[in-house]
């Protein structure tokens, strides 16, 4: 008994191994990919027909002889080819398998050959009916079972029901059908894994491109360098989080020598935030073309932005205008974290809110405040990415640490102060990733 079972089991194992390996291999080829996306060349089509044709030949050659009757998986290749690529490729590979089978002769030569040809063609028709897509594991299993039922019917019809035929039919149930089901199942699983992988890859790629796009928009709207004004030392730095937010800053040079600056935080992420940042930036720039007073700028921009607020666009900002000669700074603070003014003698003050977030209250009036920058004084403006940078435990950098860091480095240049704040934040948060954009403007009066 063992003498019989062991070789059969070994042959079965070989067939299973070959089917598994071939499925895994073919799905990952470029030829398969191009054909699945229906942009394969004639050469691709010929190659795939040959491949599945050879699989069909292998199916015939791997005949397992049980009780003197052969059993095989000849139709597997043409069926998969048809289900994946349609009737022509299905039939093409079936013809190769069929010719090979017919050359062997035997009482079932005609029904077997016919079944293979029909299997490839019908599978292709199923592909067309299913909108030119693979029908999935479940229906593919049903389909292959129906094909083998057809196989059976044709054998009865053409070869009759002699004892030799009955032995073959016996084998069909015990070995052939389970092998077919296994073959289809393993292919379907690989195919599904592969398409999932591809979808994930495409999704990741799409996100990456979007992010890059958002970054490019953001960068193109930010000034490349901070302005150089005699008697002042100015720095502007922004560190976007991985998922770009909408922090921005800008400088406006007026003809009479006054300089406007803005720091703002548009909430939201990626492309929408970047587009909204572009809109906000443009609205501010255009308004400064005919308006000078910061409060009027804020009111104008608020009116423009309120029109779009339906989509949830709001932003906080500080907008100020400095007269470099006398150091007077007029500003508005629209719901933005208060900039800190460091006085030469050691004290510090905050430039508190003078209005609410832009886009929140239509028609709101903004108050305008002013401070005076003496020689040695400086202002640090920042976005909430600075104070709300967090450690793993959720502890925040906070305003106190920010002020302390700056206080300890009063004598440094604007850019150095900015860099030291960043170093301080990095040291504080450790390995925790940056969640929000960080932007810092430092304006220092040196003379």
């Amino acid at each position, binding site marked *: 008994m063992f003498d019989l079972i062991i070789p059969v089991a070994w042959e079965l194992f070989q067939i299973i191994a070959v089917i598994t390996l071939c499925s895994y291999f073919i799905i990952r080829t470029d030829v398969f990919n191009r054909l699945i996306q229906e942009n394969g060349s004639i050469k691709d089509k010929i190659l795939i027909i040959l491949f599945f044709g050879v699989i069909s030949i292998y199916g015939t050659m791997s005949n397992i002889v049980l009780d003197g009757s052969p059993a095989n998986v000849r139709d597997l290749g043409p069926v998969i080819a048809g289900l994946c690529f349609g009737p022509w490729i299905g039939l093409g590979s079936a013809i190769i398998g069929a010719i090979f089978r017919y050359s062997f002769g035997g009482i079932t030569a005609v029904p077997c050959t016919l079944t293979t040809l029909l299997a490839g063609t019908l599978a292709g028709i199923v592909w067309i009916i299913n909108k030119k897509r693979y029908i999935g594991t479940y229906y593919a299993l049903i389909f292959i079972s129906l094909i083998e039922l057809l196989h059976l019917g044709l054998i009865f019809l053409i070869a009759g029901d002699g004892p030799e035929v009955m032995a073959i039919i016996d084998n069909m149930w015990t070995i052939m059908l389970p092998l077919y089901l296994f073959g289809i199942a393993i292919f379907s699983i690989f195919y599904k894994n592969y398409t999932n992988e591809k979808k994930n890859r495409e999704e990741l790629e799409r996100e990456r491109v979007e992010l890059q796009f958002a970054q490019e928009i953001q960068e193109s709207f930010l000034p490349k360098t901070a302005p150089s004004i005699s008697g002042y030392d100015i720095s502007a730095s922004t560190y976007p*989080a991985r*998922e770009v*937010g909408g922090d921005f800053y800008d400088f406006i040079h007026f003809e009479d020598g006054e300089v406007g600056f803005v720091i703002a*935080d548009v*909430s*939201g*992420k990626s492309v929408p935030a970047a587009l909204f940042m572009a809109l906000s930036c443009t609205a501010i720039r255009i308004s400064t073309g005919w308006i000078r007073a910061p409060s009027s700028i804020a009111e104008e921009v608020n009116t423009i932005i309120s029109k779009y*607020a*339906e989509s*949830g666009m*709001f932003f*906080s900002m500080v907008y100020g205008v400095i007269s470099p000669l006398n150091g007077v700074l007029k500003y508005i603070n*629209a*719901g*933005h*974290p*208060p900039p800190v003014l460091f006085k030469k003698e050691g004290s510090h003050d905050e430039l508190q*809110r003078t*209005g*609410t*977030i832009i*886009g*929140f*209250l239509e028609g709101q009036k903004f108050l305008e405040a002013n401070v005076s920058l003496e020689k040695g004084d400086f202002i640090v403006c920042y*976005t*909430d990415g600075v104070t*709300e940078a967090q450690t793993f435990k*959720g502890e925040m950098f906070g305003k106190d640490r920010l002020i302390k860091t700056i206080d300890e480095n009063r004598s440094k240049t604007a850019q150095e102060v900015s860099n030291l704040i960043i170093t301080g934040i990095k040291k504080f948060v450790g390995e925790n990733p940056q*969640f*929000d954009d960080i932007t810092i403007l430092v304006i220092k009066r040196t003379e």
Partner: protein
Amino acid sequence: MEIKTEKRDNAQIILVSGMLDASNYQKFEEDISLLIQGGPDKIVFNLSNLEYMSSAGVRAFLKTNRTIKSKEGVMVFCCLKPFIKEVFEIAGLDVGFKIFADVESAVQFLDA
């Protein structure tokens, strides 16, 4: 971030817990828009359990306010922790929104 909702008189009380920031404000906006869909248009946001809120959270509330206003509803806040109160004040939300010390006064205001 977690949301629980409860009806009292004519008002819907939405209890927001945890953290509201860039990582979850979109989910918050979605959840809230489902809650207020066709529902009562008098909303109290009970923030007694809201520990942290960033500018993304501010934006989420402002957007929700737009939606509620477009349906001629009204939303108010109650029970702000000191940190949240500070965030509200920096952004100026305390100017545009009614804020109450407890749920009862909020509901009373909406019923009046």
